Structures are given as structure tokens and as C-alpha cells.
């Protein structure tokens, strides 16, 4: 599905991605993990074409995506921080995003799932962080796309919303979608991830299942296993 070869990205003097290679096969949930500043968001944004790599190749379904734009019709993206134009209402925002994508959308189901009805005519500037994140989730999942990229999807969500989010993620997985998720919440990773992609110093340090990681690091607890990876032992 996604193939990344020798990806380099520098911001000024800071090297963020340093010859990253990654192959993600179609179908399943991939958790992209790594310490703060390890290049997770940069990697995701490179795939989306928002960050332009210095060198390297990114292919989706065997087609290079660099400098392209129409491939994004097959990607749903949930950005890390949900900041929307403040003077727009929720309804207007949803209508606008629908208008911009030549695709069917099923936002109604999601709106009722997250109890967003009372907020539909409110301006986005007046919503709380958690509610904005719910709107963000609706915008992401209302389209039917093969690739779904979630950058810190759980930020600000209450427990009920979190349960719904996990349900949606599982449903998408059953539809054979590919999901990339970055998060710092290890329990979520353990619960849903099929594979872990661990980034460190701009390279992939580990790919494999949760169990493989535990075995390799000699830990029974995922959090400790990850901490172990971060200190660069056992690899």
C-alpha cells in the first residue's frame, strides 16, 4: 500500500527524517510510535504532501505521490490539533469539506454517535477542545477511503467518545482499510494495533507486532518495552 524509500527531511539544521525506509501492507492498524520530536508527524505529513521531503520516494499503490494532489482523495486525515476557522458553524464546516471532496459522505451517523446535534449551529470558536476533536473525527471518518491517518486521535476525548472512536477504528479495520495511528497512549496501542512502527532519530527502529516487541525487549509490559526501545537497548 505505502512504500517509502530513503526519505530525508531537514528543517534548517535539524535533521528530522534520516533515510527512512518503510513498507506498509494493505489492511490493518499500524501504530506509529516514538519519542517526542522523533519525526512521526513529519512522516505523516510527508505522506500527505504537506511536508516536502529533501530526498527520497513515497509511493502509494505503486504510484509516486510527491508533487501530486489527487491521490489525497483516497486518504482520510485527522490532524493533531483541531483548529478550525472560528467564525464558521459546525454545519457549515462539514458542508464545506463535503463540497471540496468528490465523494459520498455519511456524516449523519457519526454526528448522532458523538452527540454533536446540539452543536451543529454553534460556531467552532465557541466549542470546547473535546467537542472540536469530535468534529475533527466526524470530518475524518465521514468519507470512505482506503487509507486513514490519525495523528493523536484521543486528545481531549471523554471516555464515552473514546469507546466510540475505538469502535469506529475496529469497523474500518474490518472493512480492510489501512489505518496509521500515532499516539502516546500505550493501552490504546495494545488494544488495537496489529503492528508497531517505532521511530527514533528519523529512522525506523522496529517494526513488528506488540508480542514481538515484548519478546525482543524482554519485557512483559508494553510501556516498559517502548521505554526500553527509547534507551536504545536490545536493538
Amino acid at each position: 500500500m505505502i512504500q517509502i524509500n530513503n526519505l530525508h527531511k531537514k528543517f534548517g539544521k535539524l535533521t528530522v527524517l534520516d533515510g527512512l525506509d518503510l513498507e506498509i501492507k494493505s489492511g490493518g492498524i499500524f501504530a506509529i510510535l516514538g519519542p517526542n520530536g522523533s519525526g512521526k508527524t513529519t512522516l505523516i505529513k510527508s505522506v500527505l504532501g504537506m511536508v516536502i521531503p529533501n530526498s527520497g520516494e513515497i509511493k502509494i499503490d505503486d504510484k509516486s505521490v510527491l508533487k501530486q494532489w489527487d491521490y489525497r482523495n483516497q486518504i482520510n486525515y485527522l490532524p493533531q490539533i483541531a483548529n478550525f476557522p472560528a467564525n464558521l458553524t459546525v454545519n457549515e464546516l462539514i458542508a464545506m469539506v463535503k463540497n471540496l471532496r468528490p465523494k459520498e459522505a455519511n456524516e449523519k451517523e457519526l454526528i448522532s454517535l458523538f452527540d454533536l446535534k446540539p452543536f451543529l449551529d454553534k460556531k467552532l470558536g465557541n466549542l470546547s477542545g473535546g467537542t472540536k476533536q469530535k468534529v475533527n473525527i466526524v470530518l475524518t471518518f465521514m468519507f470512505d477511503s482506503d487509507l486513514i491517518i490519525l495523528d493523536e486521535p484521543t486528545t481531549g476525548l471523554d471516555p464515552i467518545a473514546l469507546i466510540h472512536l475505538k469502535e469506529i477504528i475496529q469497523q474500518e479495520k474490518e472493512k480492510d482499510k489501512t489505518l496509521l495511528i500515532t499516539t502516546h497512549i500505550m493501552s490504546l496501542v495494545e488494544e488495537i494495533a496489529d503492528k508497531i512502527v517505532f521511530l527514533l532519530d528519523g529512522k525506523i527502529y522496529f517494526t513488528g507486532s506488540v508480542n514481538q516487541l515484548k519478546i525482543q525487549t524482554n519485557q512483559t509490559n508494553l510501556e516498559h518495552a517502548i521505554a526500553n526501545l527509547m534507551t536504545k537497548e536490545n536493538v
Partner: protein
Amino acid sequence: MFKILKYSFFDLMRSRWSYVYFAFYLILGFVLLFLNNDVNKAIITLMNIIIVLTPLIGTIFGVMYYYNSKEFTELLLAQPIKRSTIFMGQYLGIAISLTFSLILGLGIPFLLYGLFKSTAIFDFGLLLLVGSFLNFIFVALAFNIALSNENKIKGFGYAILLWLFLAVIYDGVFLISLVMFNEYPLDKLAITATVFNPIDLSRILILLKLDISALLGYTGAVFKKFFGTNLGLFLSLFVLFLWVVFPVWRINRKLRKKDF
């Protein structure tokens, strides 16, 4: 692009500042006509105001809109839309909505005063045309500055400096150089210097049309001598057009390498 343009346009049209700007021109138009009691004289006063004010408002609106809509732009960037489409849509949205405020704000009082019965209608039309050009030029310049500066405060600072430089300092430097080198032939220098400043260029363009030699000044006189009134008009309009094309081209070039 049209969808983004429409969105940006209505977004701005709904904002309070567009109304303030519109109301300002409306009041200005009425007051000038009331005080001068003559369309021709009002046009000259208006020219002096438009030539300084539209660049300032264009610059500030452009920079402000860019930084304020940053998150929204990121949302758009993740959609299947070309980068240049997003930014050209936003650019045109701002420039057109500012031009709307200008044309409606000044047009209404002049129409009510009986513009169509006066001979000044072409002068007035030219004034609005030049004002619109200045909007398009300075919003494009503002976008250039904002795209090159991640830091909001810096971006604002540079934008204001640019305006200050072109609207005020440029003339001063130009005048000093004329005085210092007055023993040499300065015609070519004067013309070149004017071409490189859209505000000066607009001023001369309007004065050429109004044909008021007393206000033409040195550069205007040189322009007139060199090109004659009609060719001068045509040339300066063409250069103003270039002033739109070049910054817009640079926006698109800058976009190709920009990270969001």
C-alpha cells in the same frame, strides 16, 4: 479554485472589518463631495487618500488573513486540492472582497451625487481601477511576506515596513537623490525609480489622466515628455499589471517548497 475563492470571499464579507472598511470609504466619499462640492476636486483629494490607504489595508488584510487562516489552510492541504489552487483562491478572495468595499464604498456617494452627468466619470473610473490594482498588488506582496515568515510578528513587521518604504520613504530617498545628482541628466533614473514603486506609478497614472501639470511633479513631467499622455497611461497600466503578475508568480514558486 472557485470554491475556495467563494469561501474566502464570503468569510471576509461576513467579517466586521470589511464593513468598517466599506463604511470608511462611504463616509469619505460623502464628506469629500460635501466639502468640495465638485466631483473633479473630490477626485484629486480622493486620489491622495486611495494611493496611500489601499496599499496599507491590502498589506494588513493580506498578512492577517494568511496567519489567521493557517489552521484552515492545513485542513485544506490534506484534501485532494492542489496547493496553488488553495492559495490562489484565498488570494483572489481577499483582493476581490477589498476591491468590492472600495468600489461600492466610493461608488455609491459619487453615483448619488450625479457622477453620470459629470465629465469626470472616466477619471473616477480610472481612480477605482488604480485602487483595485493596488489592492491586488499589495495583497500579493503581503502573501509573499507571510509565506516567507513563520513568525507572525515578524511577518507583520515586514509587511508594515514594506508599506512604509513604498508609501513614504521611497519618495524621500528619491528626492534626495535628485537633489544630490542634479548636475546629471536624471530622466532615466526618474522613470526607472517610478516603475519600481507601484504607489508612485499609480499617482503618475492618475495625474497624467487628470492632466494637472501643477501636481505632476518631476517624474510625472518626465513621463509625459517621454511617452506622451496616452502611451504613458498605457505603459503605466501595463507595469501595474506586471506588479500583480510577478508577486503572484513568486507565491506559486514559493509554495512548491513550503512545508506546512
